[in-house]
C-alpha cells in the first residue's frame, strides 16, 4: 500500500473498532442519499420549518427543501456579524419568526425552529425565544431544534433532530392497544416480522413516516410502548420516556439470526403475547442468501456504513454464507463491535476504507476490481454500477429484511444501473426535482 501521512485504508486486522483512521481534513464524496435534518423535519405533517443561521449554512437546507419540491414548508432568518454582538439575538429571532408566520398567511400547527452553532456559542436564550413566541401564537407549537454540527460529537445531528421532532407531542390518556415505532425516517417493511407481530397482536402502530396529518402525529402520545431499531433513536426513546412516561424497547436491526430471535422474544414479552415461530422466515432468509451467493459467486463485495446501521454484522453474515466480502467503507464499529472483532479474527485481510479521508479523492478512478456494492458510498468509491441502492436499512428488518437485501444484491448483480443519477439524488426516497 502507498504510504500516507494519514492513510485512507487499513486491513481490518490492523484497525481499531473505536476509530480506525486518524482524524484530519475531510473529503465530501458526491453521494447524497443520506437524509439530513430538513428531510427529517418534513416528516411532521403540516409543520413549517424555520432555520436561523448564516448564509453559508442556510443555503444547504433551503436547497434541500427546493429539491424536494417543498420550498413552501421552510423559511429562514439569516444571521450577520452584527447579530452576534449587538444584543438583539433573541428579539431578532422572535420578530423574524413572527414576520414569517404573518407572511405565510396561515398558522401551521407546529414550527420546528432550528438554531445554529453560532446561537449556542453566543449564549442565546432559546427558552425565552420559545416562551415569547408561544405567548404570541398560542395555537402554534414551537419546538426547539438544532443545526449544530460543531457539537456533533456530543450528539449527532440526526439523533438530536429525531428526538426533537417528537417534542411536539402532548400527553394523552394511554391506549393499551397502541405502540409507536420511533426514529424511523421511512416506513418499515410491512412484511417484516416486527410489524407482523405488532399487527398480529391487534395493535395500532404509530410511526412518524406513516402520519398523514398533524392529528395523527399527536396521536403518537397515546402509545403504551415505544419501539426503535436504529441507534439514532436512543435519544428520542429516552426523552419520550421522560416527558410522556412511555417505556422503551430497543430492538436493533440485526443481521444475526439468533439476535433476531432474541429481539422477537423481547417484543412478545413486552406485549404480553406468545412469540410466533419464525422458522419458515429464517429458512427463507437462509435460502435467499444461498441463492444470492450462487448468482454473485466470487465477485468481490463492498459494504458501507450508509446502507445499514450494522455494516460489520452484515459483512459477517455475508462472509458466513461464503460471499467474498473484501471491502468495507466505515470509520468505526458502533453497535456491531462484536462483528467487527469476528471479522478481524476470521477475515483479517478485509480492507477498511475511510469514508472521508482526503486521500479517497481519486479512489473511484482506480477501483481495484469489479465489485458488487451494498450502499451508495461503496458504489461511488468502487465505481460500481452493480450496487444495492438504499440508506439506513431501507426500511428492511428481520429475516424478511435479510431475504429482501439478498434479493436486492442478486438483482444488483444481474442488472447494473447508472450510478450517477442515483447517487446525486439528495435524500433517498424523497421527491426530487432532479428526477423530473
Amino acid at each position, binding site marked *: 500500500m502507498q504510504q500516507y501521512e*494519514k492513510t485512507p485504508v487499513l486491513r481490518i486486522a490492523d484497525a481499531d473498532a473505536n476509530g480506525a483512521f486518524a482524524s484530519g*481534513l475531510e473529503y465530501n464524496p458526491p453521494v447524497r442519499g443520506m437524509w439530513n435534518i430538513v428531510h427529517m423535519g418534513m416528516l411532521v405533517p403540516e409543520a413549517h420549518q424555520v432555520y436561523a443561521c448564516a448564509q453559508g449554512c442556510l443555503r444547504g437546507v433551503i436547497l434541500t427543501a427546493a429539491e424536494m419540491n417543498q420550498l413552501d414548508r421552510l423559511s429562514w*432568518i439569516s444571521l450577520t456579524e452584527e447579530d452576534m454582538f449587538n444584543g438583539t439575538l433573541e428579539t431578532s429571532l422572535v420578530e423574524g419568526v413572527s414576520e*414569517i408566520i404573518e407572511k405565510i398567511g396561515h398558522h401551521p400547527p407546529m414550527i420546528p425552529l432550528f438554531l445554529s452553532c453560532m446561537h449556542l456559542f453566543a449564549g442565546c436564550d432559546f427558552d425565552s425565544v420559545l416562551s415569547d413566541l408561544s405567548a404570541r401564537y398560542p395555537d402554534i407549537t414551537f419546538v426547539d431544534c438544532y443545526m449544530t454540527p460543531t457539537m456533533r460529537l456530543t450528539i449527532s445531528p440526526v439523533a438530536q433532530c429525531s428526538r426533537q421532532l417528537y417534542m411536539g407531542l402532548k400527553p394523552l390518556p394511554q391506549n393499551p392497544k397502541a405502540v409507536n415505532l420511533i426514529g424511523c425516517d421511512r416506513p418499515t417493511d410491512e412484511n417484516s416480522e416486527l410489524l407482523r407481530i405488532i399487527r398480529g397482536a391487534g395493535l395500532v402502530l404509530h410511526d412518524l413516516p406513516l402520519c398523514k396529518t398533524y392529528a395523527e402525529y399527536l396521536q403518537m402520545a397515546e402509545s403504551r410502548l415505544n419501539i426503535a431499531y436504529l441507534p439514532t433513536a436512543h435519544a428520542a426513546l429516552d426523552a419520550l420516556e421522560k416527558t410522556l412516561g412511555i417505556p422503551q424497547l430497543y430492538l436493533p436491526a440485526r443481521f444475526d439470526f439468533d439476535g433476531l430471535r432474541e429481539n422477537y422474544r423481547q417484543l412478545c414479552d413486552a406485549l404480553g403475547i406468545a412469540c410466533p415461530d419464525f422458522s419458515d422466515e429464517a429458512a427463507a432468509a437462509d435460502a435467499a442468501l444461498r441463492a444470492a451467493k450462487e448468482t454473485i459467486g466470487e465477485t468481490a463485495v463492498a459494504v458501507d456504513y450508509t446502507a445499514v446501521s450494522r455494516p460489520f454484522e452484515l459483512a459477517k453474515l455475508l462472509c458466513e454464507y461464503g460471499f467474498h466480502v473484501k471491502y468495507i467503507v466505515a470509520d468505526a464499529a458502533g453497535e456491531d463491535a462484536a462483528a467487527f472483532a469476528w471479522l478481524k479474527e476470521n477475515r483479517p485481510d478485509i480492507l477498511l476504507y475511510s469514508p472521508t479521508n*482526503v486521500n479517497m479523492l481519486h479512489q473511484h478512478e482506480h477501483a481495484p476490481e469489479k465489485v458488487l456494492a451494498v450502499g451508495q458510498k461503496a458504489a461511488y468509491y468502487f465505481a460500481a454500477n452493480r450496487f444495492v441502492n438504499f440508506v439506513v436499512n431501507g426500511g428492511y428488518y428481520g429475516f424478511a429484511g435479510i431475504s429482501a437485501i439478498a434479493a436486492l444484491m442478486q438483482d444488483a448483480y444481474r442488472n447494473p444501473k447508472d450510478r450517477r443519477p442515483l447517487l446525486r439524488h439528495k435524500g433517498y426516497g424523497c421527491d426530487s426535482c432532479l428526477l423530473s
Partner: protein
Amino acid sequence: MKQTAKIIPCYAADTSGVCSALYELGGMIAVHDASGVNSTYATHDEPRWETVQSMIYVSGLTELDAILGNDEKFIADVTAAAKDQKPAFIAVCGSPMPMMIGVDFDAVAAEIEQRSDIRTFALHTNGMHSYSEGASEALLTVAREYIQPPANKIPDGVNILGALPLDFGNPAEIPAIRAWLKENGFSVISCLAAGDSLEMIAKAGNAAVNLVVSYSGLAAAAYLYEAFGIPYVCGVPFGGAFSQKLADSLRHAAETGQPESPCTFRGTSGRKIAVIGENLIAGSAAAQLGLMGYEAHLICPLPHADKLLMQGDSDAASEEEIEQYLAQMQPDAVIADPLYRFILPKDTKHIGLPHYAFSGRCFERQMQNLTGTNFEAWLRSAQ
C-alpha cells in the same frame, strides 16, 4: 426584516465563491468548518464536483477544538494533507464558527506555509457574505500572486475575468465567450478562473485589455489596471447588438487604455422589464434589452459596483425589498431565476433564467448559454 425570507433561497456564500474560483488551479482549499458549509458547496454550488476532482476539504471543526481555540489541529491537518497531495498552493478560509472564536487565518496560513513549504494564503470568508465577495478576494489573490508583469504584450490579447460556473451554469457558455472573442479578432490569453491552469494565468499580464464578466472579476481587473496598466471592459456578450457594442468597447479600451462599462446601457422607453441577478451579467442582459427597444432595469440582490448600477436599477436584496421594488416598478415582465416566481407580482410575466448561485442544481438542465444571438432566440422562445 431584511434578513428574513418566507420562501426564496439565499445566494451561495463567500466560502463557495472561494472554492469555485480556485477549483481548477491545482491548489488545496481547506474550509475551516464543522461540515455544512462544505457539503452545501459540494452538493449545491459546484457543478464540477461529480466529474472533476479538486482538493477542496473541510476541517471538521469540533466543539472542543472551537472552545479551546485549538488552531494547531487545523494547521497540522492541513499540513498533513498537503504532504500527501502536493498541491500547487494552499488556501485556507473560514465559516461562521471560526469567526465567532476569532481564528487568525493569516497567522494560520503563515504557519502552514512554514511547515509545508508550499505557498499558503488566507481568504477571509465567514459564510455570512455572498459568493461574489469570496470569489472576488480569491481571484484578486491569484492575480497578485501569480500574474507576471508583462513581458511580451499581445496587441489583441485579452483575459476573461470572473468566469465561474456559479454564474455561468451552462458548461457551454464560458467556451462560447472565448469563441466570441476569437471571432472578434481577440486572442484569449487566460480565463480567470475556468478552463486554464496557473501557468496560463501567469501570462495574463501580456493582455491589451481585460473582459470582466462578473463582479467577482472586478477587483482583479482593477489590480491589473493599476499594476500593469491593462484596461478593462465590463460586460457579457449577450445578444447581437450588445455583443457588438461590447466588442467595440474592448477595441476602444485597448486603444485608449481606459476602462469602460457598456453593461450600464439602459433603454428609456418601451415595455418595462426587470432583470434580477448578478451585477454585470443581469446588467448585460438589461443592456441588450435596452438595445432591443425595452426599458429594462436591473435588480441586483448581490454585491455590486456603484458605477454599474444605473438610475432606475435597484440593489434590493431581501425578499421584502424586491417585492416592494417590483410593486413600485410594475414591470410587464421579470427575467429571473425560476425560484423567484413565488414573490413576483400577480399577472406579471415571468421569464425564467436559472442562476446556479441561486437555485443550485434545481434547474441545471435549463441553464442557458445566452452568448451572441442565442439571447434573442432564448427570449423569443421564452415569451
